[in-house]
């Protein structure tokens, strides 16, 4: 079976080389690196907005998705989180490993990631996470599931996801946002742009098929 597998790979690769007119000479030619470097990239890589406008754009885009957006500074963050949860009537919150304890609201039942039992549905309702970077132009938060972000299913199974975004994490354009995690590209990465949605029935956009139906954001100065 292993031999067969090697054969198939070689057959496909040799077909590709033949299709490209590669001879033995060009197979040992220099890598595609130079040609890749020469590819045209006249599109916008960096944004032009000032930081206040950038934050505002991000907030607007999130609100377009019916996300509730609030602003806070570090001092008021615990209260802001508490307010956000109250507004949605949430009394239990799942918290990722490494999430700063000092911001967790009192009076709310906290379940830590290690104790998270996916099968117990009551516990699964609400999760709070940090993020790696946010994109203003598209209204996106990106998680790489590291410290304070939780493993991937933590922000997937609950019905409500509250994401804490620092102003300094907000980039305007997609390319510059992706630069932020270029060095950790092999980490598991999830781009989240609003709650889940489908338009499959008569083109009516319906929220929340799978994945959290509610997404809120607190922007921290």
């Amino acid at each position, binding site marked *: 079976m292993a031999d067969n597998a090697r054969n198939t790979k070689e057959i496909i690769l040799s077909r590709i080389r033949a299709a490209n007119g590669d001879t033995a000479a060009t197979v040992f030619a220099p890598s595609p690196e130079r040609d890749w470097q020469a590819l045209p990239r006249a*599109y916008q890589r960096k944004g032009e907005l000032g930081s206040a406008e950038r934050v505002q754009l991000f907030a607007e885009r999130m609100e377009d998705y019916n996300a509730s957006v609030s602003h806070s500074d570090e001092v008021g963050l615990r209260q802001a989180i508490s307010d956000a949860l109250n507004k949605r009537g949430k009394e239990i919150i799942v918290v990722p490993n490494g999430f700063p304890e000092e911001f967790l609201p009192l009076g709310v039942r906290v379940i830590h990631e290690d104790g998270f039992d996916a099968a117990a549905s009551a516990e699964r309702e609400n999760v709070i996470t940090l993020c790696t970077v946010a994109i203003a132009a598209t209204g996106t938060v990106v998680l790489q599931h590291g410290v304070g972000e939780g493993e*991937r*299913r933590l922000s997937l199974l609950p019905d409500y996801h509250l994401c804490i975004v620092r102003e300094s994490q907000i980039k305007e354009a997609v390319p510059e946002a992706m630069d932020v995690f270029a060095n950790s*590209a*092999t*980490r598991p990465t999830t*781009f989240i742009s*609003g709650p889940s*949605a489908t338009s499959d029935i008569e083109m009516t956009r319906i929220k929340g098929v*799978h994945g959290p139906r509610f997404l809120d954001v607190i922007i921290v100065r």
Partner: protein
Amino acid sequence: MTVRVADAASAAKFPILANGLVEDSQIRQNVRHATNVIQNKRARVVAEQHDWQQLRESASKIKEHTLQYLDRYLEEFESACIRAGGQVHWAIDADDANRIIVGLMQNAIEKNGWTREVIKVKTMTSDEIGLNHALKAAGIQPHETDLADMIIQLGEDKPSHIVVPALHKNRTQVREIFARKMGLPELGEKPQDLTDAARNYLRDKFEKVKIGFSGANYLIAETGGVCVVESEGNGRMCLTLPEMLITVAGIEKVIPRQQDLEVFLQLLPRSATGERMNPYNTLWTGVHEGDGPREFHIVLLDNGRSSILADKESRQTLHCIRCGACLNACPVYSRTGGHAYGSIYAGPIGAILTPQLQSMKHSQSLPFASSLCGACYEVCPVRINIPDVLLHLRGKVVERQQNSLSRGVSIEAVAMKAAAFIYAHPRLYTLGQKFARVAQKVLVRKGWIHWLPGMLGGWTAVRDVKQLPDEPFREWWAKREAAKRDEPMEKSYGG
């Protein structure tokens, strides 16, 4: 090696399928509505993106470059993926892919005592190879988890669009399918009710089924990463909850570097659903300790792609990122829907991809299913010159037909050769004009013709045609020139 594109090889010709669909008022209504909605949304978000043309240019060049070095990039991807704990398989055609995939699942099910089920995220590639048939033959139950694919699967139907496969169904029809198959006789009819039903029905499956199956939008050679772009969240479910994940991807899905993703993630959502960004993108690399599947396999699929690569004129077909924008822009597609193409790949891209994957042996009517208006090329985010490719493929179809050893020669070929001969000889040509003017007399009523014989009958089935004028342009010109020559006496005396 036998390439398979679902059951395109046995599909009826486009004109025959289309003629039935053009008269189906519900299809006409639904397809028109869906394509209009997405087109309008797309137009709005594209207008917002001031560097749209530059993004298209880059995307096109990245794809062109990748194809040129496809063997290198595939090998680079394989090494990087394996380094990250993934396992890479190569499949020459549909049967090969199915054998590998079913084998992996069988082994895992037997070894671990898992249920004989798999949860699937939407991928057209799975339909292309006919995976579900192979799974069922092996006693493994596939569960489609995309809402539209669920509608199709439960309704025992076929998809009709790349991005919104069930657009040909009304909510009442969907309700009927769900009520019956999910055992929900009281089910409401609002789209929200139907979506809630799907959510509950699948939750159980997501949490219990141990094997997940997906396609891939992008494979990143530099890192070994795989990217899946989706809206509903079922992708995230299938990619992270199961113990084992198997992904199938056409070899043309690879892009060189992580940085290239920034181009495609801007082009795809705007083109496909008219959004600035779709709800969820998942990017994973091999196996992640403590997060997600413990075993990851990827099957790299050829199934005819390497033969498309060999055609310099039409290899640009492999740039396609499956956004569906060309379908929405196409005046032919929006009046027939996807079933007219007899293939999982429909619309303009389907018309060029389907026959080419099959080395032009089947689906030969598809390159002709176009008025060459060019609307598709205008919206294609990777700048595939679809009209050019259609013309090129028409030539290949004609060449094949002329080379085939069948007894008869087609009437069309005879007519074309005759026309070419006439056009090459001006005297014959003018004679032909005169002949036509005489021959038409029997068909003309009050200056118009309402019926033409044979192939030309296609015209008069729905249109009239004006009679040929008594005097073609060249005769008018000749007379005018002759009249001028008769005047010179007056002119030369300073008249």
